[in-house]
């Protein structure tokens, strides 16, 4: 049986892994089609038809072609509400609004500084690019301020948006995972509530599967 749901992009990409995590939480079958960024496949005309900004992931379902990982996650949650984790995007409007609030906080406050740190600390060395110490220091300071807000919040609430794991927590997994494998992991572990939260969200079966996928050799390209 052909699987309608397709994800285009390498699992090591933080944005791709965000979508993979969501699909696994929702028990939605999918086909992963690799895009070799090293070979510049994401900037070639065929891929640009799917994602005009030349970024991964791109996504397809039966009647739709989508990009932007957080939009894809919301779509998956709305399209498959009764599969897998039913509360991932809330079960009522107020829960959903709280999830959107923290999903936006992730996108606007957590993601920018953490993405710079992920590139500088995890990817630049592999790509033999010189690290920018000034940029690292500046973004570390920004991230600390964000994690201080999280520390307070997670002292009042088990997960960011409330008592249940949601898309808002899930969205943090990709960048945080990379940082936990560097010495900057202590930014999370030195904060009691953030550390506790990280342990819980990264311990989920769905995320463990994504981490395995990131370690495996890539599937074939399109």
């Amino acid at each position: 049986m052909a699987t309608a749901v397709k994800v285009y992009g390498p699992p090591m990409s933080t944005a791709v892994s965000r979508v993979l995590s969501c699909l696994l939480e929702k028990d939605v079958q999918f086909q992963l089609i690799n895009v070799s960024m090293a070979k510049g496949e994401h900037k070639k005309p065929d891929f640009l038809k799917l994602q005009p900004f030349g970024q991964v992931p791109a996504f397809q379902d039966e009647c739709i072609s989508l990009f932007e990982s957080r939009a894809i996650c919301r779509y998956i949650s709305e399209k498959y509400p009764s599969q897998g984790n039913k509360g991932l995007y809330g079960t009522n409007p107020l829960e959903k609004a709280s999830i959107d609030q923290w999903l936006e906080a992730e996108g606007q406050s957590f993601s920018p500084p953490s993405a710079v740190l992920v590139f500088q600390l995890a990817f630049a060395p592999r790509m033999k690019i010189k690290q920018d110490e000034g940029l690292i220091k500046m973004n570390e300071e920004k991230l600390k301020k964000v994690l201080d807000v999280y520390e307070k919040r997670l002292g009042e609430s088990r997960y960011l948006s409330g008592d249940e794991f949601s898309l808002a927590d899930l969205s943090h997994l990709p960048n945080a995972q990379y940082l936990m494998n560097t010495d900057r992991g202590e930014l999370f572990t030195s904060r009691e509530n953030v550390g506790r939260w990280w342990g819980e969200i990264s311990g989920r079966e769905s995320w463990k599967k994504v981490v395995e996928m990131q370690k495996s050799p890539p599937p074939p390209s399109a």
Partner: protein
Amino acid sequence: MVLKVYGPTFASTKRVMACLMEKEVEFETVPIDILKGDHKHPQFLQLQPFGVVPVIQDGDYTLFESRAIIRYYAEKYKSQGSDLLGKTIEERGLVEQWLEVEAHNFHPPIYDLVIQILFSSKLGFPADQDVIKESEEKLGKVLDIYDERLSKSKYLAGDFFSLADLSHLPFTHYLTGAMNKDYMIRDRKNVSAWWDDISNRPSVKKLLQLYPYLIFGNVLQV
């Protein structure tokens, strides 16, 4: 109790106000003076722990992050005012996609331009010409992609005005107003037509009449 919107003079808050006006939802505003440090006040931080605007108060309920607020009210009042979310899950998916594009591809460079050009002297630092040049280039590339998209589609998500288009209003008003970068819109045929359409919507004109843009007390002509 009437809905309260904090920080009405700021661009991100205008995003919320534009949505409320499209949905014909009554609201009142609460001023926030950044120069006086209102946003760092402990009472404000109880509402918005990151110390930024906007935040809304709906009776006992509070919500922050402008794009979370607009999603909530667009859904809550789905049956009144303009429909901003599309009619199907797939249309909603496209709205989410272009709202995420605005948040992650459009917003960062235009925000940097606004801060450097309009706010740097008031905030006490010299404008960084390198950042301005780089941001304008990045924004130009994004607008090129928009121009291509809008050659095939009247609005970003399809043939209907949605949250995705609305989200672009405030900062584009700055761009075409006091920043003298009108050409970035006008030089692109389809972006220009789209901008004429969305900026002349009755609710947008009414919003500007009732709540003009103020930069530290001075009215910004848009």
